[in-house]
């Protein structure tokens, strides 16, 4: 059975996630942009990262900062995955080579 204190904790965590502000958006967006820039320097950006960044900006322009923060975090996660891919493929590509 879930205790009251657990419920309060869950509720508190949920409200902390929901409280997206313009400042939160700016922080999250900057982090996403920086990660995507790094992916660009590795010549390995993903189209879906660009789409998530654009969606974040659009949501922020409409004043929906919860959505803007969520999209920024999505973009950052995608950009980091593309960085991981580019880094690991520096050696992993050889496994596919016809020999």
């Amino acid at each position, binding site marked *: 059975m879930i205790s009251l204190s657990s419920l309060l904790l869950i509720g508190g965590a949920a409200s902390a996630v929901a409280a997206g502000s313009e400042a939160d958006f700016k922080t999250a967006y900057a982090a996403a942009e920086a990660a995507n820039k790094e992916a660009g320097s590795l*010549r*390995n*950006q*993903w*189209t*879906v990262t*660009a789409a998530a960044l654009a969606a974040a900006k659009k949501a922020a322009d409409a004043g929906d900062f919860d959505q803007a923060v969520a999209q920024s*975090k*999505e973009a950052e*996660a*995608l950009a*980091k*995955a*593309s960085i*991981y*891919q*580019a880094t*690991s*493929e520096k*050696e*992993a*590509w*050889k*496994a*596919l*080579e*016809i*020999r």
Partner: protein
Amino acid sequence: MRSAIQFASAAPVAAALVLAALAFDSVPSAVADDKPDPVADAKAFRKFFTDKFPKVKLEDFVNGPYSMNEDMHRQWEEKEQFPPYEFSLDMGKELFTKPFKNGKSYADCFANQGIGIRQNYPTFDQKEGKVITLELALNRCREANGEAPFSYVKDEMAALTAYMAFTSRGKPFDIKIPDDPRALEAYQNGKRYFYTRRGQLNFSCATCHVQEPGERIRAEVLAPALGILNAMPIYRSEWSGMGTISRRFTTCNSQIRGVPLDPQADEYRDLEYYLSYVSNGLPISGPGARP
């Protein structure tokens, strides 16, 4: 074969990274002696495809998906009666023969006046230390004669390369790698690009064109990598028009959800160099038509 990894959102990303790490752990340890050996590569490349498709005649690989089964081959033969690239070929001939404003023409920029030379491109320019593709050479010719460059992906560029390919039909690819470490490096970079997974779908060029030729991806039958550039440029029904090698590379990248590089970026030039070299000996068949 490693399965495609879906990186859809933060939580699946973490799971996918774990999967990917596991997959990389299973990479055979006996990978690579890193010294490039283009002659051995080309031999192994050809053997891979001829072993995989023992019924396909070597010269037929240049017909891409149409070489993969008899029904499709018949479709191709019927298509060739009234080829959809014909209008582009006519336009290309007209463009090619029409002088520039300064009175010179494309013929002044190329060996043999540009006729029957497609099979020699890309070439490695030792002065510049880089790969020069036919598309790049055509635009450089234009700019050297005071003309604005064409878009690399379709229309006039596709028409010009269609005409030049047509004048080379049947001539075997004859790509040279000069005794120059930079040429070997360009070749190796092209090879690396070909096998490197990219985009959210985690595909390399080889994922489709080495591991799965003859199989379907949605409605398309995948072409084998051997001879894949011999038919370029191509009319694609999917594009409702002609496309160049640049168009093929950039759209392949965006289809796997990777941001394409600029047409004629060094990576694409090197990729074309590699892919053309390993198809040496196979005839030019361009312009081509594809579904």
